[in-house]
């Protein structure tokens, strides 16, 4: 998991309690937004990176991290870093499964994503029945990271998490 982030292992259980406020089934580790977390004598420095620039969840995530660490007996400081910029590749396998169960189709690879969003190709899987007989309703969805789809078999409307690389 999260192989490219620098995270002290003793901090993982605490970070794993902090959920994404907009997609509560995902922890911030599943999202891949924690880039750095190091502890020194109960003082923790954490660096997080935004999914999208305008993501209003980032401020909340910062507050939630500080709170979770306080409850665990640490003093945490949170910094926002922009580089390297977040990619949907950083969502963990556990995160992708959680997304799908929650009703959000996880991001496809860049080429497939383009084909689904622009080429009208039926490849995004319905989160309810699993059919790929689905259609794009809107390239933009309820939050910046999602597009809106509908299943043509079971008619379920669902979100698709757009690929960002």
């Amino acid at each position, binding site marked *: 998991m999260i192989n490219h982030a620098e995270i002290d292992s003793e901090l993982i259980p605490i970070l794993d309690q902090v959920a994404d406020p907009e997609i509560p089934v995902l922890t911030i580790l599943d999202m891949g937004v924690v880039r750095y977390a190091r502890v020194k004598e109960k003082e923790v420095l954490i660096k997080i990176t*935004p999914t*999208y*620039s*305008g*993501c*209003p969840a980032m401020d909340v995530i910062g507050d939630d991290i500080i709170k979770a660490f306080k409850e665990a007996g640490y003093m945490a400081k949170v910094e926002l870093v*922009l*580089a*390297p*910029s*977040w990619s949907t590749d950083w969502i963990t396998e556990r995160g992708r499964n959680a997304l799908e169960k929650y009703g959000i189709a996880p991001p496809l690879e860049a080429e497939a994503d383009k084909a689904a*969003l*622009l080429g009208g190709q039926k490849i995004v899987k319905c989160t309810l029945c699993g059919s790929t007989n689905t259609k794009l*309703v*809107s*390239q*933009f*969805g*309820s*939050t*910046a990271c999602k597009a*809106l789809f509908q299943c043509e078999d079971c008619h379920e409307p669902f979100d698709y998490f*757009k690929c*960002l*690389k």
Partner: protein
Amino acid sequence: MENNNLYNYILGIADNSLILGQRLGELCGHGPSLETDIACTNISLDLLGQVRSYYQYAAQLADDGRNEDTIAMMRPEREYVNVLLVEQPNTDFAYTMARQFLFDVYHFSFLTQLQNSADNTLAAIAKKSIKEVSYHLRFSSDWIKRLGDGTEESNKRIQNAINDLWTYTDELFHQTEADKQMISEGVGVDTSKLKEQYYNEVSSLLKEATLEVPESKYFQKGGKKGIHTEHMGYILAELQYMQRTYPNLTW
């Protein structure tokens, strides 16, 4: 301030996105359909998010107690240096998409270059933003094609919008003193080198959309020097209302 040119250069980039973001935000709850409404507000949110990164950096450089909010909200009109294009009104959906498309093509190629800036912070903001802007460009390009190649009415309307807004495109490539200084230091993007490609790209998409490329050689300018169209005052009145009415308010 130690680096006034850099500060002004950052504002030159950020003000475009702030004012365009504000314009798109006007459509929140007023878009022509649910999907386009959501799309326009999503794009607005992306732009305002990018703006925050720029103004935070500018505030850090200013180092005089100003923060991102005071820079965004508290300047008088003459100190905003956005191009005239982005302050043009929403008029109808064709205008909104034409304005977006004419800006997105520029924005995308600008950010492509800014990624190589000698300034690490600007390069990082560019790398982050360009991923989002590629979606904006796809969206607005799609709509240009859809409207151009749509009905007689939609073709007429988008052609009118393109014709009217064309006059504001040249200013995208004008350079201020701060721009020139930053270009010479490898921090800024030499926009004069983007111009030809810009018009090529825009023209080829317009043709694909069965639209005519305007031939007008008369162009408007002024925004980059703080001289705005009559629309700007109204935008700022709305943008600054809360901060002006309740100075120093916080959430």
